[in-house]
């Protein structure tokens, strides 16, 4: 089926056309006959995607904005304009600010931990060693498992009575009673951060590994011959050269953490007493479970400016990583 097999068959190529112009990336050959249809083809090829995005992403997005200025609920689905009332209600509620603060706190703390751990892991996983496939398999598990199921696993790991972590701590004589990880505000927040770190480290590691592999081997070899040790290489080669890709990993991870409600929904449902609520889970409890679509939509919209900033930052970082 390769073109070479058919080369004798069709004689549509005009004899006077130059065979190949290496200097220009696009072949000049079929211009005459295909030029128009190539533009048409591009439009046709992109049409379904654009239609899908406009119909099922852009439209719902605008609808979300419309919702947030209306009084729509699941019980009363008509859209009546109420101005800024919903936004005022939200900004005046204490839970909203807790959720806002938690969203930022969870994201920032997890990202700081993730970037350090992912770098260490990436350094290890680009090397060859025995049993590497097993280590890689284990490390990727948290990422490949559906978040909700992974959270179910953690829910049992952090169980108030039968947590094996508690059992180990008791065995060492460090605690007497149980820790109630998900029952105390600070521990519950710590648990949620731990789960986010655990599930996003693999993604970040994979992205940063790509960055590590992109460093030309000669640079490390040269440094090694010159007597540079691990830390010196890390400080003067690895970190500066993987900075842009690390930024990409962090921002991707930030978006994943930031927009996630699954972990909070399954582990704590925002409790104890709303202490671990985040914007996305709060939007769900308000909008879907509470039926207040307008306020739910408004809460979710608060994510948008922050996401947009992260997306622009990713693009910048990607552009810079081309320099390597």
């Amino acid at each position, binding site marked *: 089926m390769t073109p070479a097999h058919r080369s004798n068959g069709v004689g549509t190529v005009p004899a006077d056309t130059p065979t190949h112009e290496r200097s220009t990336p696009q072949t000049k050959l079929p211009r005459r006959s295909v030029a128009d249809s190539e533009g048409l083809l591009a439009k046709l090829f992109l049409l379904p995607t654009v239609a899908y995005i406009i119909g099922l992403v852009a439209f719902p997005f605008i609808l979300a904005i419309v919702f947030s200025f209306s009084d729509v609920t699941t019980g009363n689905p008509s859209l009546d304009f109420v101005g800024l009332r919903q936004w005022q209600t939200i900004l005046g509620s204490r839970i909203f600010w807790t959720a806002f603060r938690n969203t930022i706190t969870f994201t920032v703390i997890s990202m700081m931990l993730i970037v350090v751990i992912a770098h260490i892991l990436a350094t290890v996983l680009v090397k060859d060693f025995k049993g590497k496939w097993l280590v890689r398999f284990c490390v990727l598990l948290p990422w490949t498992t559906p978040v909700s*199921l992974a959270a179910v696993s953690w829910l049992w790991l952090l169980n108030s009575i039968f947590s094996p972590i508690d059992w180990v701590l008791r065995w060492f004589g460090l605690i007497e009673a149980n820790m109630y990880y998900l029952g105390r505000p600070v521990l519950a927040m710590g648990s949620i951060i731990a789960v986010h770190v655990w599930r996003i480290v693999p993604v970040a590691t994979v992205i940063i590994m790509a960055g590590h592999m992109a460093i030309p081997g000669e640079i490390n070899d040269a440094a090694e011959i010159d007597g540079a040790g691990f830390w010196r290489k890390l400080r003067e080669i690895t970190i500066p050269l993987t900075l842009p890709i690390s930024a990409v990993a962090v921002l991707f991870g930030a978006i994943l953490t930031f927009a996630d409600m699954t972990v909070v929904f399954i582990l704590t449902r925002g409790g104890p007493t709303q202490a671990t609520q985040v914007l996305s889970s709060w939007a769900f409890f308000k909008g879907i479970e509470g039926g207040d679509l307008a306020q739910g939509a408004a809460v979710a919209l608060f994510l948008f400016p922050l996401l947009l900033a992260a997306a622009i930052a990713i693009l910048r970082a990607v552009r810079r990583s081309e320099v390597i």
Partner: protein
Amino acid sequence: MARTESTAEKFTGGRIDVTDEAEVERMRQQRRRRARGGRLALYSIAILAALFAAGPFIWSAITSFKVDPDLYTKANNPFIYNLPPTLEHWRFLLADTQFLTFAWNTLWVGFLVVSITLFVGLPAAYALARLDMKWSGPLGIAIFFVYLIPPTLLFIPMTRVVGNFGLLNNTWSLVLIYPTITIPVSIWLLTGFLKGIPKDVEEQALVDGYSRLSAFARVVIPLAFPGIVAVIVFAFTLTAHEFIYALAFLSSTPEKTISIGVPTELIRGDVFFWQSLQAAVVFVALPIALVFNLLLGRFIAGFTMGAVKG
């Protein structure tokens, strides 16, 4: 680049005059010591990381075979079987719950979503990678941005949209909506793979009288096949992972997918079917991770190619 060259120069600076035997021997030993220390550090980090990552799943796997009196005795060592293990909770999961219905729903939704994704995404990726249009750069970036808009932002108006299609509480709603998640990321990956195919091959096909369309269908797609397999797995995984839309749209048990079925149906109020829950986790986690591992190299290639040329 300039920066690292200067670093290399700095390193060579003091060492060029090192010639005497003792000094060379000392350096050699230092090198060996470092290598051994490095090896030790390497293995300890690798083992620690593997244990931390797989820990919850190991705990899940152990739990899924435990009998109730063993599991619910606080003093028992949780990591061993104090009483003989049982398959009862696996049987319960597979026979007495709707788990297999959830699994089936996940599979067919995934299959249809992946098909739609490829059907829509492949031509779009080709157009972005090859048919140089003035607006293809900005459009590619716009599609990338769409990938970064999470379901969390849209699920509330989306329930209205799904309702208007008459698909509320119907698994088909996911077939309609999930491509909004998978198409952008697949285009991103596919564009990377398509750019990796040498243009010459296609030009040759055009010289041989293929039209653009048939060159795309008969030459480019077969060559991009490894990349396409990676995208299939990636897109399928995304649909299997999705939680919020499914939770917002679906409420009756037989319509649910694994991702929401397991946590909502195997936890009834205060009653947790712990062993069966953990069995479900293990049952789903292992196969996906296995396939993913096989294709990891291709994902990295696709992402970096898409990124660098984007």
